[in-house]
């Protein structure tokens, strides 16, 4: 782990955020509907439209707006939301906090289930439990989030009324209430993650079970439990780290539908609302924060991987 590697990773993080902001800016610039019209709606008078366009600098050419935005970014000012007039940074950061809480719980819950399931399926290859895990994983990767969310909502929240339907309660306010509210969304997301991670753990474990050093361990007469824990699982679960880091991206922006249905104002939903309302500063800031978190998560994963696997040495 040397300075040169860290420097290069830092460059990657910055480069990722730059490309994302450029891409988002380019896409949002080609908007057919003018952001000012969206803002004022039916009451837009020509004079008012002109005033808004001037205030938001929408008349300048696209590249100058981007440079202007970059300069502001350099001073740590992410701009003001066109829709609510609130500064964008605090809103987005708190939204990120909520998304990370949801992501953390989902990842934790998922790992508790997916890893044992995957290993079990690998050990009992071809037998019922393996087919069951296979079926679950096919289902998990084939059912869109909004379908699972809707079904869970009907069954758990309405019929059985075990859980509060939706809404978000900050843990700082009321921890139990907050957790209660998060059970359904976490369940919805975890089903998909469990499906996709258990499949990966299963194939990874099968590969390691067929490796030379596991066979050598067995032929050294070591007890099966030692062979499994010390030799097989330690190496089979390493790739899970990278998968979890990649899922962070999905968990931040990909679960917009879950955040929408369960009324959790995470960063995904804030971005969705901002996109439909053509609120460019919010879209820009949200995409940047999300991409930054994703890049940092991947860097952390690489560091964790290097710490656990002696073969990886970054020079």
């Amino acid at each position: 782990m040397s300075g040169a590697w860290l420097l290069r990773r830092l460059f990657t993080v910055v480069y990722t955020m730059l490309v994302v902001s450029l891409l988002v800016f380019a896409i949002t610039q080609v908007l057919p509907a003018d952001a000012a019209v969206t803002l004022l709606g039916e009451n837009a008078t020509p004079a008012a439209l002109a005033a808004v366009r001037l205030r938001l600098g929408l008349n300048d050419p696209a590249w100058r707006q981007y440079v202007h935005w970059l300069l502001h970014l350099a001073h740590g000012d992410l701009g003001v939301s066109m829709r609510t007039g609130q500064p964008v940074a605090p809103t987005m950061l708190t939204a990120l906090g909520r998304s990370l809480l949801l992501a953390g719980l989902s990842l934790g819950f998922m790992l508790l289930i997916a890893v044992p399931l995957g290993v079990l399926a690998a050990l009992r290859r071809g037998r019922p439990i393996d087919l069951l895990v296979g079926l679950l994983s096919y289902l998990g990767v084939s059912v869109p989030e909004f379908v699972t969310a809707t079904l869970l909502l009907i069954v758990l929240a309405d019929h059985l009324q075990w859980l509060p339907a939706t809404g978000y309660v900050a843990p700082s306010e009321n921890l139990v209430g907050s957790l209660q509210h998060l059970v359904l969304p976490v369940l919805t997301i975890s089903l998909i993650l469990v499906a996709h991670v258990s499949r990966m753990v299963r194939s990874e474990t099968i590969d390691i079970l067929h490796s030379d050093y596991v066979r050598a361990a067995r032929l050294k007469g070591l007890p099966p439990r030692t062979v499994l824990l010390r030799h097989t699982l330690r190496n089979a679960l390493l790739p899970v780290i990278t998968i979890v880091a990649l899922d962070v991206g999905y968990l931040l922006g990909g679960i917009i539908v879950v955040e929408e249905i369960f009324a959790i104002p995470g960063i995904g939903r804030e971005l969705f609302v901002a996109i439909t309302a053509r609120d460019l500063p919010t879209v820009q800031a949200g995409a940047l924060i999300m991409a930054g978190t994703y890049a940092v998560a991947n860097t952390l994963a690489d560091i964790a991987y290097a710490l656990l696997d002696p073969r990886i040495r970054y020079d």
Partner: protein
Amino acid sequence: MNHPTRRALLAGTAGAALQPQRVFAQATPSQVGAGTPRRGGTLRVSVDQAASVLNPLLTRVNPEYLVSELLYSGLTRLRPDMTAEPDLAESWTANDTLTEWTFRLRDNLRFHDSSPCTAKDVAATFTAILDPKTASPARTNVGPIKEVVAQDDRTALFRLSAPYADMPAALAYTNARIIPAAIATGDLSRLSREAVGTGPFKLVSFEPDRRVIVARNEAFYDPARPYLDRVEVLVYPDPTAQSSALISGDIDLIAGAGQSEYQRLSTAHGVAALRVASGQFLNINMGCQQPPFSDISVRRALAMTVDRTAMAGFVAQGYGTPGNDVPVNAAYHFFKPVPQKQSDIAAAKKLLAEAGFPNGIDLTLIASDTPGSRTQLAIAVREMAKPAGFRIQVQTMPHATYLDQVWKKGNFYVGFYNMQATADAIFSLLYTSTAAWNETHWNNADFDAAVNAARVTTDEAMRRDLYGRAQQLMYDDVPSVIPTFFDLLAARRDYMQGYVLHPRGAVFRLDLVWLGPGAPTRG
């Protein structure tokens, strides 16, 4: 003054699997005082979209009207029967030509920052509203004001550019809220982050996409009100989830319930479903200034294909009243009952042939994607008009693109309008030649004359006759097809008292609400 009894039982035809029975749970004003109001407690209200605009002059959607009504006050307020009652102004008089109105303010009114609220603030507020650069929706809805002068601290004189009888009701418009002169003339954008009003509540926290919290304004001009300590406005974008939250007790009031949820709410335990007929309607605007809709028989033919009762069922899930191509219905003061139009495909086909389209006509009907009922109406009309030879292609688009490219420009598209305070307001907003949102370009001289005449007199009988003639003209000429009106739906926990579901849809009066026994204590 309103007519709870005139509602005939809805012509509910048999067969509809879940024909909603007309439970009329509307609490009339007299019931408000039944129990003795208790002070204290926190009310949780849920709205279906974020109240993202805090500045009272710029609010546009119901959640924003609700928040702005808590924090600010206007000169007058609308009673459920659409007549004006005093708010900041305790009384008002007009000169005999109805061109000058004088409003007398209550004594020692205070803003939330305890600065005094005088006629100077009223004058500055209306100057800001009338300034085109502010782009306030109120600009064309508060009557023909030329200027507002503060004669002394408690008297504001409104000079009009033309006589206007409905001035008190017009000043109750949702955006006509009084703000401090310093802000009105200075930096208006300050109001997008903070609230300095005279309303019954003060702003505690504003997270637009999640929750807005307000607390009692101790210095409110009426010491008795508000009864509640705190009000939390929560955002529930998903109607199904919103109803579940009410049923499970997470929230106390759903300000606007979805039609599809009403059935479940009306049978849920501990929940009172509220419903009132209102003037909110969907219409199909036809550009009367260019073919094919310049020919009146084409318009009449299309109007004849629509089965208005079925349309109320399709688009409002049965929670609506059939329309007769007139934007005024029973909820309005000067409503003139007219015979209910029935669909007659054969007659429509014949009329269309006479108009020169013997083998049918091809049209493209544009419907924006918000609210969803627009596209449902378009699809329903397409199917209903098909047998009469109308080959309608439905095209949907995002609301922003609709506003930019189609609204007020296209010649065949779906409109959606909230109820206005007065008949004059709805006519001069949409259908007179000088209307701000003149979409149909009907430009009918007789209609203009009737509406203008009615505006300048306070003689009740004459106004009723003139508005009657205006409605008859629209009934016959059909500048736009208005097939159905929507009932407003809401739902509250049974322990919540004093709430009236207002037909205007933008009035909530939560300052009259109090929590009866059984209300959960909330932090």
